[in-house]
């Protein structure tokens, strides 16, 4: 069964460092998302991406964050200068269809720890 894969599964970084989280969505999907979950809190929407541009983003997704699809398979989330409060589990998701008619398929998550 096709699945969304994320790397790394866990990354530890120093505050102020740049981090790139990578995702390989399901191959024929067109819509891509990043969500995050701070420990003990809710899973929160960060950003959606379609046709090589951001479709929607949340207030959390400020100038420190960026996403891109550098090739035909990867979808990355970059945090330019990490802060302590960026420590969280980051989930990538993809969907084959627009909006809520399409099921979101989530990856296993990348845990980011900022020291």
């Amino acid at each position, binding site marked *: 069964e096709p699945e969304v894969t994320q790397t790394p599964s866990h990354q530890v970084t120093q505050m102020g460092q740049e981090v790139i989280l990578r995702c390989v969505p399901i191959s024929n999907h067109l819509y891509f998302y990043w*969500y995050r979950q701070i420990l003990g809190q809710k899973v929160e929407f960060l950003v959606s991406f379609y046709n090589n541009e951001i479709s929607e983003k949340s207030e959390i997704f400020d100038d420190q964050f960026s996403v891109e699809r550098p090739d035909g398979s990867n979808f990355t989330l970059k945090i330019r200068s990490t802060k302590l409060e960026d420590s969280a589990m980051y989930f990538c998701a993809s969907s084959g269809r*627009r909006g809520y008619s399409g099921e*979101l398929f989530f990856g296993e*998550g990348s845990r980011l720890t900022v020291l």
Partner: protein
Amino acid sequence: AQSVTQPDIHITVSEGASLELRCNYSYGATPYLFWYVQSPGQGLQLLLKYFSGDTLVQGIKGFEAEFKRSQSSFNLRKPSVHWSDAAEYFCAVGVPTGTASKLTFGTGTRLQVTL
């Protein structure tokens, strides 16, 4: 803005017993409603969803959920729990006017199953 409340952080049931996980949402109209499950080390998997129509929704793994507009609830049920159902369960709501799958999640309920 929409919100989701899952009042139970942790529930323990015996294998074979029935299960009900509570979910209450806040939104001015009828939202799109979802239940996701996350097993240890896995991504979020969609159990079932409600968009419209029959208020009793059947999902995978023998789960069902009932949408009750008067109570703003979308509780998840299973008549007989299996040990493999031990996981974290997330209720989520989506706003029909959205184009992205910008879900708002609850904080989750961790289910423990005793043998």
